[in-house]
């Protein structure tokens, strides 16, 4: 059987073999990221044409160490490779990606791919690293011994991509499989002995030198703490000037667009509902992108598993393992991918607990709320000469959330018997993050954020504008018009429940649409205050309005509320899908709302007493 025009191909390989950067090189921005039906393992499909114009659809399979899988990610890879997946056809051709610098580990999986009986092209990646380590590889000999074409590439620099593409146009037959009971380890050793020349005294690799510091029992944790600290300082300090400029620009744009409109209903709808609402949220784009820049860079550089190594014992205090650290860290960007990433945890109890505490990790949607309130109530002092007090408070909010998460996990895992939970984590070599991959990741985030603004946030604000504007007040009414509206009445009805927390009725109104997405609470406040005052530009002046109308205790209580409250419905929906249990979701919502109420109550009370 030979296939001259493969249309469906798949990239398979170990984690950290550079599969994804090869995928990015092949497809550029022509890729779609989604999930496999029924499960939430990420599914990446891309499209490109070969030099002879054969259209190719390429699947980036989840990284796997073997086809005898131990996690849901690896299940997908195995099922697709073997043609057992219900929704995805078996690829016509596989590209087996292996790192030249780590053949001992990667060749073994390649041999498993060889046994499948489909044509395989071997992308021998990271040739530059192998060269640096002093390895010489007899590529032709290896190719003949494997009975598969082997193309040396450096996926980070597009090197070798052209020959790889050309190979896709060539006719390829499946390799003849190894005899049934071959010991793959012995075979791998034989291949390396025969075709790879290593220097007599192996050069010390950069990774080993770096690990001496980053895994050091004293310096390691200090470096980790330093990185996290700088990360949060930059999220606040670097973003501020860009956000200010963006905010001023948006205000000017809004004013210019609305200037020709006469005062009236339509003007109010556009100014208070759309511009005030969307504008207050769009401003936070730079901050969210800086946060993602850090997370993507840390991920690409190979540092994250080191952090998991250092924090394994801390996670053990919470009854979990270092493996839970990575899903929890990505929850700082957004709890949704975090909850999904928990799929890589094999132990079912650890996975459930990780999912339950993921919403406590401060997601980027809370940043707008935090930033606004910190900006309005915390002075911009410099502490100890180099730290910014506002950044420090932000760091404190994150720390409070993390400590609460550890305590919550401890309570949840207390006394629950469980099988052994393995750590068993590969510490990949350090790599310089590829600018292109980082840019692509940031671009995808920006599009996602802005389309959220364009859809959910604006429509909720328009709805809220309607609820806050109608019914119109009677002709000779005293007080603000919003008091007579539906939203105003709901807010006043809710207010007694939240009065012990120091929340006024405007906050109560904003909490409802804030359920759809946390940052909507901010745009809702802007809308409510814009309608509530006669001042037309209240949207631009939310910050001064808050600092003059709210007490310090109210602001801090709202901050405390947002540390815990499970405000975002999508998180609960993903939780439901991941755990397949409504009971778990209701339990999670109850415990998070309970904590939020308690924390806000205590904060309000303590601030009142001490200030």
């Amino acid at each position, binding site marked *: 059987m030979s296939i001259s025009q493969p249309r469906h191909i798949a990239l398979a390989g170990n984690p950290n073999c550079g599969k994804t950067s090869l995928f990015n090189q092949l497809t550029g921005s022509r890729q779609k990221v989604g999930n496999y039906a029924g499960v939430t393992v990420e599914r990446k499909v891309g499209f490109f044409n070969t030099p002879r114009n054969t259209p190719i659809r390429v699947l980036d399979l989840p990284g796997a*160490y*073997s086809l*005898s899988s*131990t996690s849901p990610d690896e299940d997908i890879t195995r099922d697709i490779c073997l043609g057992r997946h219900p929704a995805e056809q078996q690829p016509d051709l596989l590209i087996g990606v292996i790192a030249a*610098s*780590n*053949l*001992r*580990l990667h060749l*073994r999986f390649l041999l498993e791919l060889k046994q499948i009986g489909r044509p395989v092209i071997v992308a021998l990646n990271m040739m530059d690293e192998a060269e640096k*380590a002093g390895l010489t590889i007899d590529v032709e000999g290896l190719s003949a011994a494997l009975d598969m074409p082997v193309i040396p590439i450096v996926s980070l620099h597009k090197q070798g991509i052209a020959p790889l593409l050309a190979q896709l146009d060539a006719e390829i037959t499946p390799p003849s499989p190894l005899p049934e009971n071959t010991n793959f*380890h012995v075979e791998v050793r034989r291949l390396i002995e025969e075709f790879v020349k290593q220097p007599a005294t192996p050069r010390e690799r950069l*990774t*080993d030198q770096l*690990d*001496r510091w980053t*895994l*050091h*029992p*004293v310096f*390691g*944790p200090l470096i980790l703490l330093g990185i996290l600290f700088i990360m949060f300082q930059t999220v606040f300090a670097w973003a501020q000037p860009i956000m200010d400029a963006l905010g001023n620009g948006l205000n000017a744009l809004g004013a210019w667009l609305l200037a020709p409109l006469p005062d009236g209903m339509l003007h109010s709808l556009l100014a208070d509902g759309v511009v005030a609402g969307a504008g207050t949220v769009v401003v936070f784009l730079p901050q969210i992108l800086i946060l993602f820049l850090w997370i993507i860079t840390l991920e690409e550089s190979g540092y994250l*598993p080191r952090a*998991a*190594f*250092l924090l*394994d*014992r*801390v996670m053990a205090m919470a009854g979990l*393992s*270092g493996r839970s650290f990575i899903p929890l860290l990505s929850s700082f960007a957004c709890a949704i991918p975090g909850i999904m990433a928990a799929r890589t945890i*094999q132990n079912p109890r650890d996975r459930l607990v990780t999912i339950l505490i993921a919403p406590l990790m401060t997601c980027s949607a809370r940043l707008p709320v935090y930033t606004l309130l910190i900006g309005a109530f915390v002075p911009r002092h410099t502490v100890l000469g180099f730290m910014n007090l506002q950044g420090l408070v932000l760091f404190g909010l994150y720390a409070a959330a993390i400590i609460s998460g550890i305590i919550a996990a401890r309570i949840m895992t207390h006394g629950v018997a469980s099988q*052994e939970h*393995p*750590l*068993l*984590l*590969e*510490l*990949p070599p350090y790599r310089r993050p590829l600018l292109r991959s980082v840019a692509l990741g940031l671009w995808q985030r920006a599009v996602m954020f802005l389309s959220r603004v364009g859809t959910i946030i604006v429509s909720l604000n328009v709805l809220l504008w309607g609820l806050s504007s109608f019914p119109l007040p009677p002709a000779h009414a005293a007080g603000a018009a919003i008091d007579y509206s539906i939203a105003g009445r709901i807010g006043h009805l809710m207010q007694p429940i939240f009065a012990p927390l120091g929340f006024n009725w405007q906050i109560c109104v904003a909490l409802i649409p804030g359920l759809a997405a946390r940052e909507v609470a901010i745009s809702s406040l802007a809308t409510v205050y814009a309608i509530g005052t006669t001042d037309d530009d209240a949207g631009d002046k939310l910050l001064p309005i808050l600092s003059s109308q709210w007490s310090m205790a109210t602001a801090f209580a709202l901050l405390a509320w947002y540390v815990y409250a499970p405000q975002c419905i999508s998180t609960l929906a993903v939780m439901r899908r991941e755990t397949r249990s409504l009971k778990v979701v209701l339990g999670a919502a109850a415990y998070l709302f309970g904590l939020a109420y308690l924390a806000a109550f205590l904060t309000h009370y303590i601030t009142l007493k001490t200030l």
Partner: protein
Amino acid sequence: MQTLATLPKDHEAIIADVTSVTNTDVIALRLGELGFVPGERVEVIATGPFGHEPIAVRLGTSRFALRHSEAARIHLQDPK
């Protein structure tokens, strides 16, 4: 016999055997797939900041983080 869990930091040894603690020990199976097989050389390159756990092990050109209970499955040859 010494196991990888008791090998001190910066020491090297050769794997004698990987034992399963249950009939279907997925952890032992996975260790084998990662290359922890008899005859391979392992070195402890770092130990965790608290209680010397977990340990970071170099195996050829790869590095892995293991907890003591995982490393205890890996028995080492006695130094000659």
